[in-house]
Each structure stands twice: as structure tokens, then as C-alpha cells.
């Protein structure tokens, strides 16, 4: 999400390394990416606890009569958190310009959706709060782009919250230490076969909008950017020890 907002690969990788050049100066870590300049408001790691914050940001847009829409991402695992329910109710009540984007990858760490949620489809949650819901195929780039664009247009015409369940998958384990033994090889292979980047490539080459050579070049450049960012992060300085106390409180007050 940070990369999509335009945060550089270097700043992201350096943050993963805990370095001073990271997007959160090495103080946030992998779970807490922030980039104020690019309107990237986190990176939050208590599952669901950030969803009320998004409601607050959307509230502020409405309060100041600004033409802004807040996009709040969370996973299928967040759907049962009280904070998410409360935020959805408040957003519905105040007609906040906010899109709740549930990236449903079928597993919250090791617990499958069927084992965690009483609903058949997560998008049904939105109905309970009088929020329009949309299901989006997360393995299809254009479906994501087009359907989100439609939602955004409708919010711009008449501010309201919306809910999008984006169905996707996670190829790797939840973390470095997760062998992902809770799912089958067949399921993984099925989704890998449906990979959104591979699909987009096929579409674009079929439509002659991009050649295979051009695509390989983009792929190569992305790999180079990633490798260069690792080098950048490795060579970056640690956050200074003498500044340990500098970020606990901000000085001064609004006068």
C-alpha cells in the first residue's frame, strides 16, 4: 500500500531493516509504515483497531468540507473485531466518505474464514450497517480498478461509506516462521495459476497494448529496484541512540 501511494522502495526496505532512512525513521517497523507527505496514514498492526481511525479521517474531510475519500484496508481476520463494527456503524451514521476494503485472502494467520466467520460472504456485513457492498475479484487487476473507480465516483457525487470485499490469496505464510500447513498444495497452485500479474500480462499482450519484451523489461526493473533497495537499506545508518526520547512527545502547543 505504501508503494502504491508513491513511497519509495528504498524508504520501505529501510523501514523493514529498522534504519533511519526508513519511511518511519526505523521506529515503526514492518507493521507501521507511514508517509505523511503522500497521505499514507499507516501501517497499523492491532487487527481492526485502525478502522475507527479511518472513520476519524473521513469525519475530518466532511468536517472541513474537503473532497477527500479515505481508503481503509483490512483483512478477513479483522471482520469480527468490535472496532470494525463500531467504525462501520459510525461511518454509516455520519455518511462518511470512506471505503472499507476487506482483502479476503481466506486465512487470518492460520484460521480459515469458514472457521472464523458466521457469514457465508463477508460483504454481507455491510448490509447490517446500511452500507453498500461490492465483491471484487482481487486476482483481476481490471476488476479491482473498475469497481473501485465506480465506488469512488458514487461517493464523490454523494458522500457515503462503501464496503468492498476483494477476494484474493496469499502465496506465502503469514510470517517468516509460518510453513502454512493449514492449507493444501492444490489450493495454492490453483491461485498461483490465477496470478493477477500473469493475467494482466496476458490481457495486455493479447490486446497488443504491451509486448512481452516490454513486460520483461518492467519485471527486470522491478527486481533491480528491489535489490537496490536492499543495498540502500543495508548501507543506511541506524536511528541515533541519543534521539531515543525525541519522539515520545511533540514539543509545544497550538497557540
Amino acid at each position, binding site marked *: 500500500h505504501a508503494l502504491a501511494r508513491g513511497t519509495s522502495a528504498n524508504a520501505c526496505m529501510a523501514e523493514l531493516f529498522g534504519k533511519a532512512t*526508513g*519511511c*518511519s*525513521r*526505523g*521506529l*515503526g517497523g514492518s507493521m*507501521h509504515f*507511514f*508517509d*505523511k507527505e503522500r497521505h499514507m*496514514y*499507516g*501501517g*497499523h498492526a*492491532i487487527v481492526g*483497531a*485502525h*478502522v*475507527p*481511525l*479511518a*472513520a*476519524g*479521517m*473521513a*469525519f*475530518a*474531510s466532511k*468536517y*472541513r468540507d474537503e473532497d477527500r475519500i479515505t481508503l481503509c484496508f483490512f483483512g478477513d481476520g479483522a471482520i469480527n473485531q*468490535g*472496532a470494525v463494527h*463500531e*467504525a462501520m*456503524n*459510525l461511518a454509516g*451514521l455520519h455518511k462518511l466518505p470512506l471505503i472499507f476494503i476487506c482483502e479476503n485472502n481466506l486465512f487470518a494467520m492460520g484460521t480459515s474464514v469458514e472457521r472464523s466467520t458466521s457469514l457465508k460472504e463477508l460483504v454481507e456485513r455491510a448490509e447490517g450497517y446500511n452500507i453498500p457492498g461490492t465483491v471484487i475479484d482481487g486476482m483481476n487487476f481490471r476488476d479491482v480498478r473498475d469497481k473501485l473507480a465506480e465506488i469512488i465516483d458514487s461517493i464523490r457525487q454523494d458522500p457515503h461509506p462503501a464496503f468492498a470485499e476483494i477476494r484474493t490469496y496469499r502465496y506465502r505464510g503469514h510470517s517468516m516462521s509460518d510453513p502454512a500447513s493449514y492449507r493444501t498444495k492444490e489450493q495454492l497452485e490453483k491461485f498461483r495459476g490465477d496470478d493477477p500479474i500473469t493475467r494482466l500480462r496476458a490481457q495486455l499482450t493479447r490486446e497488443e497494448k504491451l509486448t512481452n519484451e516490454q513486460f520483461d523489461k518492467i519485471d527486470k526493473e522491478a527486481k533491480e529496484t528491489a535489490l537496490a533497495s536492499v543495498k540502500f537499506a543495508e548501507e543506511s545508518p541506524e536511528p541515533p541512540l541519543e534521539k531515543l526520547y*525525541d*519522539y*515520545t*512527545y*511533540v*514539543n*509545544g*502547543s*497550538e*497557540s
Partner: protein
Amino acid sequence: MREITYRQALNEALAEELARDSNVFLMGEEVAEYNGAYKVSQGLLERFGPKRIIDTPISENGFAGMGVGAAMVGLRPIIEFMTFSFSFVAFDQVVNNAPNMLTMSGGQFNIPITFRGPNGPAHQLGATHSHATECLYANIPGLKICTPATPRDAKGLLKTAIRDNNPVLVLESELLYSSKGMVEPADFELLIPLGQAELKREGSDVTIICYAQTVPLALAAAETLENDEEISAEVLDLRSIKPLDLEAILKSVSKTHRVVIVEQDRPFCGVGAEVCYRIQKEIFDALDAPIMRVAQEDVPMPYNERLEKAVLPSAEKLIAAVKKVCYA
């Protein structure tokens, strides 16, 4: 100066800051149409309208989090908890999101939010509604905490809290809302800095350290001690728990050489434990007696009036502790 209630002082502080800065808004349960569960926000809806005085559903986690989010993008929310016992439902927002954001974002996002409402035991509210939360929140870096005991302090501290660029908890006292005291005229800009204790009574034999609703208790005990025991007690009101005015504490204790801390929270890891540690660490040689603490008993609050009284700090318990440190 004129005499007003603690409730009225808070109301004036809110009204003045709302009038002064359009980024300030008040949000909480029953703050608008009901005029506040304890009438602190009386008349504010009428004056400032529903855009800025906002009733919420009973949804503390949700609206406290909304406040933090609005603060991230530059608004200055005042979030009222009907009582701080209910802030536990929003604990994650108060201890995780509000105070951690500045560090987690590498200094990019400060959270200029005020959480306010009554804190501490009132009268026969039972275990769930009687929490004194100051010791819990004082453990969290990134939060500031003040505990006004008088109308003047209530007004001056709340105004300062609203203007502070960090999350500040203003822990009011239900039992003090109707108490009266002298406050500067309404048009006087009364700002009391956070982290500044105040001597509420001068004395020479012992320092009584107190805050919030233990201040009137300490003042009453000091009168009795003067009249009945010829013990001259100095009463130091912390006013802020964090930052703590260590300088004022050490100055008073260096003069009296004896200390009793009377606090409204529980004894285990209570505010007094930290104050006690700091005193002995800095001026051990100045002490003529071990430091005593008077706090609640370490039990969930019973409903029964007689038992509740036994749990709470009282003038009798305080006087006994003072006599002990004075070897009287």
C-alpha cells in the same frame, strides 16, 4: 475573581476553546442533546451546533478511535468518556493508537487530542463504575495526565490540555462537579501549565501530597491536625500526574522532612509508589521518617456504603498516617 462550580469552570473552558479554534470539537455519549451526563457540556450544542458538539452511540472504542484519526489529520478532538471506567472499552485507542503514533511514524503524526471525563470512585457505583485509572494511564509513555481538584485548576488545565499537541487525559472528579471555588473573570485567559504542582496550604511539619478528590480531603485533615494535634501540614496538589512536578515535591519535602501521599487509586503500582520512589532516590537524607501512603484498599469496589467507605482513603486514615510519620 468570582465563585463558580467545578462543572461551570469546565464548561467555560470548553466554550472558550471551541470559540477560539474551529478545529476543536466535542464528541461523546450524551454530550449534545442531553447537555452532558453530568451537565458539563450544558448549552454547548445550542451555541456551537451539531457539527461541533456530537452525540455518539455507546461505542467508546469506535468514537475514541475516530477522535485519534481526526487528530492525525489536524483536528483537535475533545473526547468525553461518561466516566473513565468506560475508557477501558476504548483502552486500545487510548494506550495504543493515541500515544504510540508519534513514535511509530518516526515523528510524522502527533495526536492533539483531549480525553476527558470523571475518574475515580464516586458514591456507591459498584466495582465497574468506580475505577481510578490514573495509575494505569501514567504507565503509558506518550500520554499526559492532569487531575484538577478546584474549579480554577479545572478551567486552566482543560484549556491547556486542548491546546497541547499531544494526547492529554483530563481526569475530572464526579464528586467535585458541584464544588465551588474562586476563578478569574470569564474574559480572563486562564491557562495552567501541565506538570506544575501547587501548594494548596503551607506548613512546616509534614508534606501531604495529593491530587483530584484527595485534595479537599487533605485540606480538611490538615485543619484537624493543626487544631487537634498542633501538627502543621503542608498540602501539595500535584495537579498533573504526568509530567510530574518533581521539583515542587522535593522542595516541600526538603522543608518538612516527612511525607504522606494520599491517592485515590489502588496501592499496588499506584501513583504514590512512583512519587515515593522518586523522593527517596533524590533526597533520602532529608527524610526523618519512612514515607507513608494512603490509597484505596486492594479490592474491587464493594457497593455497600459502609464497605465502600472502608475501601476509600479518608481524613481519619490520613490523620493516622501523618501522626505516624510525625511519631506523634
